[in-house]
């Protein structure tokens, strides 16, 4: 390997995988059980959430997670540390979840509608909610959002959380993956781009569609009366 190539890889490695990753990797490769326990504690919860968002049931999710760990172990010696450990594990899990999701018929009823919205198509907000060209102020709100009552409390309630998670599960796959990693799991955008092989712009477009739809689902849940009143 030419020197520059080695240096480039080195630089990428240190950028993506911090020292902590490298140390943990060494210990894992030596068969250190405590290291694996640490890895499970660190990555297990996020992995479970990530997979749960993409498959129909907890049972299936546990199988996918187990498969993922198996693949992680089998790939450990070949892992070059060019991305962080977490990014690498997430991309393995997503690949498995995608395959599994398809096989389980996760691609739900509105396949046709869904395809239309695939990869960030469609407006963020229903166009009917804005004034038309003949309106007093074209393009401005016709039925504006209504304030939610006690939003902090309501948004933390278990029912609202279910509404949000359901809305995410109903998103097209790419949007679902991006919002899960960014907003549910709190990853930075460059890490998400890395794990999903997206450009920053593309990632942001997908994220925006996804967020807009989740907000709309919350709105519909918290403000059903406002909806009716505007008709």
């Amino acid at each position, binding site marked *: 390997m030419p020197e520059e190539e080695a240096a480039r890889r080195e630089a990428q490695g240190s950028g993506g995988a911090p020292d902590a990753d490298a140390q943990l990797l060494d210990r894992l490769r030596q068969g250190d059980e405590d290291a694996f326990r640490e890895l499970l504690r660190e990555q297990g919860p996020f992995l479970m959430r990530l997979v749960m968002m993409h498959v129909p049931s907890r049972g299936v999710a546990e199988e996918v997670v*187990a498969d993922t760990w198996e693949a992680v172990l089998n790939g450990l010696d070949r892992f070059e540390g060019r991305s962080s450990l977490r990014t690498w594990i997430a991309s393995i899990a997503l690949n498995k979840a995608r395959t599994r999701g398809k096989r389980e018929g996760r691609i739900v009823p509105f396949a046709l509608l869904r395809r239309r919205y695939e990869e960030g198509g469609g407006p963020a*907000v229903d166009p009917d909610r*804005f004034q038309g060209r003949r309106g007093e102020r074209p*393009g401005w709100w016709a039925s504006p959002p209504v304030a939610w009552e006690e939003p902090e409390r309501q*948004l933390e309630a278990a029912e609202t959380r279910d509404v949000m998670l359901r809305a995410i599960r109903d998103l097209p796959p790419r949007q679902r993956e991006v919002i899960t990693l960014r907003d549910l799991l709190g990853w930075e955008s460059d890490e998400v781009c890395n794990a999903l092989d997206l450009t920053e712009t593309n990632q*942001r477009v997908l994220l925006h569609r996804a967020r*807009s739809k989740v907000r709309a689902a919350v709105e519909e849940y918290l403000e059903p009366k406002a909806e009716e009143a505007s008709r």
Partner: protein
Amino acid sequence: MSPRTNQMLTCREMVELVSDYLEGRLDDPDRERFEEHVAECDACTLYIEQMRMTIAALGHIPTETVSAEAERELLDAFRDWSSTRS
């Protein structure tokens, strides 16, 4: 003459830009136009606030837990793995 008025973003355009704004991805002139609209439009102010709150609420949903049983099985798998390679 007021070129600003012609350039005023509509609410419909605003809702498409919220994530770019929140992610700090609007360049200065666009951000100014965005904020100019916000200053004038309570509905968009509320919309952006609701987006912010929704994003924050998503971040507060606890991650899943790994069951003790699953952890035990994974540790067994790790032992198998390390014993086959040494």
